[in-house]
């Protein structure tokens, strides 16, 4: 066969860069790409201590959507959702974008009211949303039990036709390869041990392979954010909590939509391969250890079997988990942190995947222009001192 082209090439880091990005996951890679391609930044390094896509990028349930609650953030999520559509073409790599539609179940009048409010809010922001009755829902998802039988019967649902999935590993590689094409150095096995600051300005980083000086440093390290905080003598408004996922044996196509129950904290989609991926809530306590537990698996299994009774015999093949750095308002922290040249893209909890394109774009804009873009203003760190928390969750 024809000579194989090396698509992924890693570099040894040089002594200095214009921008050093800490973290080789989707947020770090996307930011590097937009900086290189759209802002003409020449010398960029992405430093990753394990392998690209090691963290949340390689572990998530692939959901992309814009049906968030806080209306001031809707333009950001809407743009991110739309950016996924053109990304395969732009990155020249099939991200397997499937805008199959997301269904969010309501199990009470209160939830329906909440969903109505969010739907109106989302429609006003230009996002297509419909409300479905149990009957309409049954036609779309025949295997869903929309009767009175389940413990918390389904009252109705919200349908977000443009929500869907993107293959997470493909996204990592697509952005990585595009980074390489635009001259970004991706350095794996490089661990940042300290951030150098002089007179409140960042000058570079210390790593396990030596010092690298940098005009700007950007942190996009996912669940490990607080380690960056420690390096600069700051606490961050995050706690790191694991979130577990399960996957099954493969089945003939039977589920065309992503089905989620916000109330019951479970969500599931059937992948192109045919298996079901099942996500659930954050775990019960803070931890930096990526483990899975019987309690979470059983809880999820119970919910799936309750609402998809025909799946009772489906078999679980693998369980895994990832670390989520969570804030009290389920919204991220982007922009500056009070130190010149140091920017953050952290606290993405369990909602970081959908936001990859827009957070990469706007992080790059912030880094390149030193100005906080309008669309991410709500995510600034100072909101925790102004008590201007994002109203993403109600209770």
């Amino acid at each position, binding site marked *: 066969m024809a000579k194989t082209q090396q698509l992924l090439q890693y570099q040894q880091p040089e002594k200095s860069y214009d921008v050093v990005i800490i973290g080789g996951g989707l947020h770090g890679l996307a930011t590097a790409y937009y900086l290189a391609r759209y802002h003409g930044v020449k010398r960029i390094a992405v430093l990753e201590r394990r392998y690209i896509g090691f963290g949340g990028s390689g572990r998530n349930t692939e959901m992309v959507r814009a049906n968030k609650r806080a209306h001031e953030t809707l333009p950001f999520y809407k743009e991110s959702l739309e950016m996924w559509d053109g990304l395969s073409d732009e990155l020249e790599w*099939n991200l*397997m974008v499937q805008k199959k539609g997301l269904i969010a179940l309501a199990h009470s009048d209160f939830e329906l*009211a909440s969903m109505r409010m969010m739907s109106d*809010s989302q429609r006003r922001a230009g996002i297509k949303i419909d409300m479905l009755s149990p009957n309409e829902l049954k036609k779309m998802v025949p295997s869903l039990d929309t009767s009175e039988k389940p*413990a*918390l019967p389904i009252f109705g649902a919200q349908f977000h036709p443009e929500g869907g999935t993107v293959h997470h590993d493909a996204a990592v590689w697509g952005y990585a390869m595009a980074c390489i094409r635009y001259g970004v150095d991706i350095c794996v096995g490089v661990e940042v041990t300290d951030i150098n600051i002089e007179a409140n300005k960042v000058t570079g980083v210390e790593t396990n392979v030596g010092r690298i000086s940098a005009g700007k440093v950007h942190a996009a390290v996912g669940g490990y954010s607080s380690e960056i905080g420690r390096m600069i003598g700051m606490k961050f408004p995050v706690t790191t909590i694991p979130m577990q996922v399960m996957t099954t044996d493969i089945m003939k*196509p039977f589920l065309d939509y992503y089905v989620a129950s916000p109330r019951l904290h479970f969500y599931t989609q059937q992948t192109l391969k045919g298996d079901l991926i099942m996500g659930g809530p954050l775990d019960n306590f803070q931890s930096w250890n990526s483990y899975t*537990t019987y309690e979470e698996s059983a809880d999820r299994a119970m919910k799936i079997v309750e609402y998809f009774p025909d799946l009772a015999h489906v078999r679980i093949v693998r369980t895994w988990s990832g670390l989520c750095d969570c804030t009290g308002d389920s919204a991220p922290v982007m922009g500056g942190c009070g130190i010149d040249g140091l920017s953050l893209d952290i606290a993405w909890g369990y909602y970081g995947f959908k936001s990859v394109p827009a957070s990469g774009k706007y992080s790059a804009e912030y880094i390149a222009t030193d100005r906080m873009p309008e669309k991410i203003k709500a995510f600034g760190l100072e909101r925790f001192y102004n008590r201007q928390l994002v109203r993403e969750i109600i209770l």
Partner: protein
Amino acid sequence: MTGRLPESPTQVVDRTKPVTIYYQNKPLKAFAGDTVASALLATGIDTFSRSFKYHRRRSASCLTGHCSRCTMNVDGRMHIKTCQTTVREGMSVEPHDNLEFDPKAIADSFSWAMPTGFYYKMFYKPIWFWKRVKEIIRAMPGNMAAVKPLAKKASVDSVNLSPEILVIGGGLAGMEAAITAAQSGVRVVLAESDPQLGGFEAYQAEDGFSRVQESIRRLEQFDNIKVLVSTTVSALFPDGLAVCNQTCGEGDQFVERAYYVRPGTVVIATGAGSSPMIFAHNDRPGVMLPEAAQRMIHMWGIKPGEHVLLAGGDDYLAQVALELLDKGVALAGLVDFRINGLDETLKSQLEGKGIKIWRGCTLTDTRGSKRIKSATIVSLDRSVTESVACDTIVASSGRYPRHKLMGQVGARMIYDRELNFYMPDGLPSSYQAAGRVLGLEDPEAIKAQGRAAAVRALKTLNIQVAGDEQLSDAPAVRPVSLQPLLSDEKSKKKTFVCYCHDVNEENIEQAIAEGFNNIETCKRYTTATQGTCQGGMCEANFAHLLAKKRPELVARDLPTTRPPVSTVSLSSLAAGHHDIPQISPLHRVQVEQGGNPMRMGAWMRMMDFGDQEAESLAVHQSVGICDVSMLGKFRVFGPDAEKLLNRVMTKKVDGLAPGKILYYAACNQGGILIDDGVALKMGEHDYFVTTTTGRAPVTEEWFSRWCREEDWKVWMVNLTESRASINVAGPKARDVLAKLTADDISDAALPFLNWAHLEIAGVKTIAMRMGFLGELSYEVLCPSSQAVFLWNRLLEAGEPLGLVPFGLEALNICRLEKGHLVPGLDTDGFTTLHEASFGWVLNKKKTETVGKPILDLIVDEPMQQQVVPFSLDGRSPILDGALVVDGSKQLGRVTSIRYSPLLDKTIGLALVEPHADWREGGKVKLWFGEREVEADFAKPPFYDPAGERMKM
């Protein structure tokens, strides 16, 4: 292939007990003791499944539950390992694919067009094209199970066990460990995934079988060993839980059983298997591991084939060859990739029987897509190439430990180059390993290690057991040669490494060349080891291949192990878990009387009794009763009770006089309103406190949180479920009660915001006069056991006065008419006490109140949100959740909105940003049906502003 070998004592099949199963709806004769796989193999069925990508024919290749190629739909249950499922009379078995004629098998001819990751490099534009292609991709894979409505609900049993020791694996090592442990009197659970005990030795001809029987005889002497067969330990969670999943056999009413075992200590004796050899078309029906061949001849009495070629670099293959000959199976020969390694005795025995042996040779290719027809043998120096006719290839590239449970508890598997075996490092001391899983082969050494493992394991529990903890001579692990790779450009395309996903050697080479060059990225890009077998048949070969292409990867790390070890059904995981709502003591009687129940939170509540508007009018005009038993009720008492209540509550509880009701609110440290309720003083340092329904489950946690660092003497009792609560509300409420009580309930004796002990209809109650609904009302508390009696007496007494039961909807209408908000419904997780207009509930001098410091800091700051009442004339279709807007700006939302028949207005509350319009005469613009609808700002209450009705 068809028919059975003569019976022998090693067989588990009982030919006196025929069993009929149905394969593709046709009856198939089997015997008790057969597995579904053995029953199929005995009738000559070769193909069990079609492969994932290329739809190649696949047969059972390991017959020990690891390769996942024998999976079929059994009795409506998908992806069942037929090799470990014993037959049951009437069982229905269906393959997942059309095995004989699979049109998608054309994919196999186009494998050249499907290099690694080809789908990442194409199909993505234009978008409409991708949308079509993905539907095709979805439908393509082989071995997909169909999701169909289940004829019968899954029935899974669940059992909890807590033995001192769990032994995983019922082979020689495991049985020995179990016996040793049992001798000390402790409870032992022994789990074995096969339908019978014995492990590897059970199918090592007569000698092995007798050894096993001897151990079983000794084991059966103990009644403190619980033996679980057909039970796979799916996961060992490091907190001690072992999840063991059993497939139930004939006569069991359940289909599966989940054992949740919490042992004090564990012995892992899960054994070792063979790793498959890799050569072109090494996945074809007819290619199997030596264990599979042995199990066929010794356990089920089936010929693996008519003309068998064996291959490997291990004396084990020669041993198996002799066993096959002994059972009358013709051999094509033995291929040994060692030049001089083959044991002399075995060699001469084979040659004495005329069996050809190729030394220093390996296999590179095969022919025969439906079933093997021949194999290509090549010498390591490539000087000799020979094609040999055969219909079966029994091949192994070395032993490989069944290590996954060790990985789950934190051990790392380290590759030993000399031994070509993986050994565990870092196994925690309460998990001891023994036997073939640690590379041993000698039966006596295995038994000794099993004994030692039990001794060491129980020592971690401080239980002394007779036996040697250490082995005097650490038994040596016999090295086995690594398979040499002689693949060429052409054969690499069909040399399968990962069978579950059809990943071949060329795919892996290409991935590495493209830059996916460590095990984690290569695995994800090629999808090797990510299939059902989760590395069980492929990860060793994958690691070796990677190391061959990248010699610097000395460690040959395996991919991360995750639970479960073997697939587990959702219903097994869910076994024993139920979500059941709570019901009040008055639930059933209300339903009988026409109440419409609905689940709200954890409780079932009555929404109405058929007409919520009429019910609300009844509350205003005569009287109604409503079940409010879900509200939180607590006794807080002790010398320091006041200190605690003064912390949690916004009001000061000192000086609360007996008979008086104190209404309070509670905040969190952020000053956010989280709860409200009342407090009554029952006695010296003894209080009765209520909370909202939603907060009741966390009230003890919350209250005790505020004295957890104190040395206070204060205690709580949760009375929520032991006390029922009935709200009797309406102008005739007193008249109704007067008929049932001799106590003085005049307004003078029991004024508004007071409470009293009353005996109503003989029931001892506490009655509280409050004004949530705006009418004369009494909240009557009684023991839950007497609630139904009291309810019915109230109905009887009230009937002539027009008393009706009413539900939550009518309650909602009435409280909205008074403008009363419900914390958590009309406020959210950001609403401070001030923003909820609850500043009047805050004792400004008391500093210890939770949240007071922040409330004081923000009292003069502009509010971020506030609760705004509004009304519209007549009825309105607007529902809860409607947005409040100002042009394109979104200000907030409607939290409660209802039509009031009394006022003939639609009234509601909204949680909104501050705005100039929130004043008399202002307009509140609601967004409904894609347009603005104007409502009037209205200062509450909408009804009886002077509040006279409730003070009657």
